[in-house]
């Protein structure tokens, strides 16, 4: 059966090989004098200019899973899946306002992770540990999900096996290569590969959104086909427009996902790797190009409806795997070689974020667990080494999740991941503006938000499952007389904030020790060439800079 897809497989393999070579060569790209430092391995020397940052963050935030799952959601549920567009509009002004401050304070103090910042700001190793663990736990399933993106492509190409090991062998090989070059080149590898990944994706999608509507009878016909499908389905909440029940869910999900996305360790890693504040700010105007792309990709779900694509069967009998609709659409509508390019774009699209996420998780472990609790006097070289090894462990864990557990488990965990990473908002994002919250208040708020979020997710049923059926929580569960639903994460973080504020007031009344703020107000505005950088990282400031893009 894979023989029918030989051209696709050859094109896919060649492009995959190309980026693997690039991944290893990346170690020499903009090479530093000393690679054995976390600033170099984990943050690319904090030196990326405009273009590299654009590709890196774009490649980081818009993952293969996004490209596969968003159209799958549109295919299955309609308008509700389009939340990805407002979500990726809202995030950039937020980063513009908030994460530039994190960049500045990290630049001056040499922070590598958000937990580093919290440690210094609130003088609380416990709070920093909670932030680090939250980040690691939220990131792991996200890495595993990238594999699901690759798997959807492999499935469509007929690369399947009779047993679990044979079926997963291509993914294991792909991740072994990825692990090897990430180990060697650090953040430089995904930064370099992102150029290829994003160029491929832009070409594929531009061709698709121009050619497919022409072939399928125009946009009017595509929307009409989608409308007809949702009219015929028994589900009352699908359709090409939102209804009264899911509007609140739509906007809270968009806002909550945006807040969650910029708290994810891998986004912060991408931002901290840029050279100065201007690079970040300019990128916030340029990155929405990807949102446009994502909006068009989402509409591929409707094109699949219009083209009459039938998704491949899922892992359990009788189920269908909607994640295969986009690969199938390409297989059906395009010549084999072009479908191969599209598959490679998705496959490589999985590698870039997976690499950055594993680096971000490894940095958290190294800085906030290893250095904090296991080896206080770790040298810069030891830190880099621990991080490299941890990145390997993280990837092995992600592969194991997919091979040994039901992939659904990773999807559930990722759903949970978005909700739990939001619980770091008070300490990390608000912490950048104010130290009003008491450190113990933040800890108690975190516990409350986590507990409530988990309970709410557990309560959400879907047509096929009793628990963890999604993130749309019916307000009737709280005793409201309504059929409206709301995004779990927003409620959980609101409770988190309220609890943190109340506990803060109580502790302040009781005059409980608050610790010392290790940062100063003007740390939050420091920029490249700052004269007061805390010593430590031996950045070779006098070496010639790459030309600014």
């Amino acid at each position, binding site marked *: 059966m894979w023989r029918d897809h030989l051209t696709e497989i050859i094109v896919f393999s060649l492009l995959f090989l190309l980026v693997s070579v690039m991944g290893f060569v990346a170690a020499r790209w903009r090479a530093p004098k000393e690679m054995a430092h976390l600033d170099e391995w984990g943050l690319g020397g904090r030196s990326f200019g405009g273009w590299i940052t654009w590709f890196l963050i774009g490649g980081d935030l818009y993952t293969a899973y996004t490209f596969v799952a968003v159209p799958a959601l549109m295919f299955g549920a309609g308008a509700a899946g389009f939340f990805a567009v407002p979500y990726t*509009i*809202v995030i*950039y*002004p937020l980063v513009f306002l908030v994460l530039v401050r994190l960049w500045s304070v990290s630049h001056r103090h040499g922070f590598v992770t958000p937990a580093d910042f919290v440690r210094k700001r609130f003088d609380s190793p416990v709070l920093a540990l909670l932030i680090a663990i939250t980040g690691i736990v939220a990131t792991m399933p996200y890495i595993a999900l990238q594999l699901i993106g690759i798997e959807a492509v492999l499935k469509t190409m007929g690369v399947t096996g009779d047993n679990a090991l044979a079926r997963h062998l291509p993914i294991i090989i792909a991740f072994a290569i990825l692990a090897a070059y990430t180990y060697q080149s650090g953040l430089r590898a995904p930064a370099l590969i992102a150029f290829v990944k994003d160029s491929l994706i832009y070409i594929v999608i531009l061709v698709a959104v121009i050619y497919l509507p022409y072939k399928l009878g125009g*946009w009017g016909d595509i929307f009409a086909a989608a409308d007809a499908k949702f009219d015929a389905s028994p589900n009352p909440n699908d359709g090409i*427009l939102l209804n009264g029940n899911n509007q609140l869910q739509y906007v809270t999900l968009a806002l909550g996902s945006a807040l969650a996305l910029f708290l994810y360790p891998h986004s912060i890693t991408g931002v901290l790797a840029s050279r100065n504040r201007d690079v970040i700010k300019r990128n916030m105007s340029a990155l*929405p190009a990807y949102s446009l792309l994502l*909006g068009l990709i989402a509409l591929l779900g409707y094109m699949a409806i219009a083209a009459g694509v039938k998704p491949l069967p899922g892992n359990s009998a009788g189920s269908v795997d909607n994640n295969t609709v986009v690969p199938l659409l390409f297989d059906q509508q395009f010549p084999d070689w072009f479908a191969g390019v599209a598959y490679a774009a998705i496959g490589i699209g999985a590698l870039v974020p997976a690499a950055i996420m594993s680096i971000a998780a490894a940095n958290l472990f190294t800085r906030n667990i290893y250095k904090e609790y296991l080896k206080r006097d770790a040298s810069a070289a030891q830190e880099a080494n621990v991080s490299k090894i941890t990145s390997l462990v993280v990837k092995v864990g992600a592969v194991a999740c997919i091979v040994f557990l039901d992939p659904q488990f990773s999807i559930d965990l990722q759903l949970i991941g978005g909700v739990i990473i939001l619980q770091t908002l008070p300490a990390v994002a608000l912490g950048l503006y104010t130290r009003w919250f008491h450190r113990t208040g933040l800890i108690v708020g975190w516990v409350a938000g986590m507990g409530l979020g988990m309970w709410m997710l557990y309560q959400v049923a879907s047509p096929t499952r009793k628990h963890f059926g999604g993130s749309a929580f019916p307000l009737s569960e709280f005793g409201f007389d309504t059929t409206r639903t709301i995004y779990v994460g927003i409620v959980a973080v609101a409770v988190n904030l309220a609890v943190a504020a109340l506990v803060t007031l109580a502790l302040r009344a009781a005059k409980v020790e608050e610790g010392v703020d290790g940062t100063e107000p003007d740390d*939050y505005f420091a920029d490249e060439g700052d004269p007061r950088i805390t010593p430590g990282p031996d950045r070779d400031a006098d070496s010639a800079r790459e030309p600014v893009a």
Partner: protein
Amino acid sequence: MAAPEPEAPPTAPTRAKDHSPWNWLLFIPIVVPLIPAFFNGDSPRVFGFPRFYWLQLAFILLGVGTTTLVYQMTKKRGGS
């Protein structure tokens, strides 16, 4: 480049820039895309796209325009 050595850290002007009132404009692209009343409808259609789709895609331009404007109005002057 080739900026004269700043003897005193230029904290005061930097601070003033970060507190620029222009930053408030950034709340427009945060709030507007989250109001379904604007976009949750079918007509008018543009190139066959229902309003729900083309207007939300147009909000991307709103975001780009606002961040660009704020960046231009708040960036450091004098090429430093």
